[in-house]
């Protein structure tokens, strides 16, 4: 059973429920823990951003909590994966959509194949964050307790920081686009992820196949 099946159109208002309560909690749980790791991580990353650590309780405090909330963030993404991974699988349509992503960027959605519950861009972001979180944990572990790395294996330390930073930068790239799309580029997304509801027009425009499925309308003629 896909998680999408417990999302149903609401007869009363005509709006459609896009995200269940559980999905919204999941999203903000990972979002906030990520933001904390991002802010403290950027403080360690650059002297120009070290004030972020001061604002968040000081450098030593940030250093104490960053890895712990990192693990909590990863647990959040795994929880999310449990519910979303089927919805996030890449399909043939997604590949065709990605080939013509420039039309999406130019707001010529009419030139693109219709999308299911998530479009290919959202799916890519999802996998980027999931694998990014795994790599961050793997490398972050060595940064966390370097005192237990024997001297003979000391070379893994700079390698781990380097990879940790590269993984962080990759997720930051996705994150910038994610925030831009959610807050600015696709109006209605923010309401969807906070209240759970979207208008029928929103659903039809951005995720037509999903819209047809949850409203029980006939499948499209392509």
């Amino acid at each position, binding site marked *: 059973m896909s998680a999408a099946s417990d999302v149903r159109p609401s007869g009363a*208002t*005509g*709006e459609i429920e896009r995200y269940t309560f559980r999905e919204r909690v999941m999203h903000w749980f990972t979002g906030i823990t990520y933001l904390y790791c991002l802010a403290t991580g950027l*403080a*360690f*990353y*650059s*002297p*120009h951003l*070290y004030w972020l*650590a001061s604002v968040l309780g000081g*450098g*030593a405090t*940030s*250093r*104490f909590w960053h890895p712990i909330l990192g693990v909590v963030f990863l647990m959040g993404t795994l929880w999310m994966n449990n519910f979303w991974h089927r919805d996030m699988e890449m399909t043939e349509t997604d590949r065709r959509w990605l080939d013509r992503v420039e039309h999406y*960027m*130019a*707001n010529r*959605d009419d030139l693109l194949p219709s999308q299911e519950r998530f479009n290919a861009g959202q799916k890519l972001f999802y996998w980027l964050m999931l694998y990014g979180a795994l790599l961050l944990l793997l490398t972050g572990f060595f*940064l966390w307790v*370097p*005192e237990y790395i024997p*001297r003979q294996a*000391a*070379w893994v*330390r*700079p*390698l781990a*920081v*380097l990879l940790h*930073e*590269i993984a962080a*930068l990759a997720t*930051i*790239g996705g994150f*910038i*686009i994610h925030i*831009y799309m959610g807050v*600015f*580029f*696709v*109006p*209605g997304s923010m309401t969807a992820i906070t209240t759970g509801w979207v*208008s*029928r*027009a*929103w659903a*039809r*425009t*951005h995720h037509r196949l999903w819209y047809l499925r949850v409203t029980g309308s006939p499948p499209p003629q392509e």
Partner: protein
Amino acid sequence: MSNGPLQIKAISGHAGPVPGRDASRDYDVCKLVDVTTCIGCKACEVACLEWNGYPFRETVFDNTYQTMPDLAWNYYNLIRFDEHVAEDGTLSWLMRKDQCMHCADPGCLLACPADGAIVQYSNGIVDFQQEHCIGCQYCVTGCPFNIPKFNKETKKVHKCTLCSDRVGAGLEPACIKACPTGCLHFGSKDDMKELAETRVRQLHEHSSHKNAGVYDPAGVGGTHVIYVLHDKDHPERYGGLPKDPQIPLLVRLWKGPLKWLGNIAIAAGIIGVATHYLRFGPKRAEEETKGEPK
């Protein structure tokens, strides 16, 4: 020897200007360790503990004349002991006073992300400021000599201060004061280099150590602790003193090009999405069809 109050010339993890950057109001200080006259008495180890107020601690016997296998967060100074058998079969005991080298180009300071946790004074002393340390141990990763040591309880890192508190008050470091053989000297870097060269010449002329030389490794910009070695081509015989110490390449990459690439990528990403919005604007949903609820 007076240095007056210590002026800072480099600060770890610091974004703003550093008042004393590249300035040298005083002369550079230097500790000279002549390993050829060290008898391994450990007076310097004791003096170091006393001055820094650390308790005497258990020693670890591992069949050598070394007090313990490695430096510790509250043990800044250790006489390393090695036995060396030369080609002609003669045995020698090599003693080397191991402590922070006070690199001119310190890897610890380069790696440290915490503002002010490591400072370099204009006289060359590299000093850790524990109240600003966040315990990340990046300094351990950056140091080519494996010097900084972590206190697991306080989560702070410690190492030899070159007695910056004494030197700032015009005194020599505690270890220098305690050494009974005159194998330790303290003065300006120029004077110590000269003294070291004199000693090397003496060894060449009056001993069998024809390959004696001064250890002042260029890879870290020279150090403010220098050695006279019996054999300058084999520093690794002295408890693993690195032959050509360098700040690890990965640390340089991480603190140099990767930061620049990362900053440019983040800035480009933000400018990119902003420009995209100005060019294309938001993605509007299609009109509601008539008769549809809401």
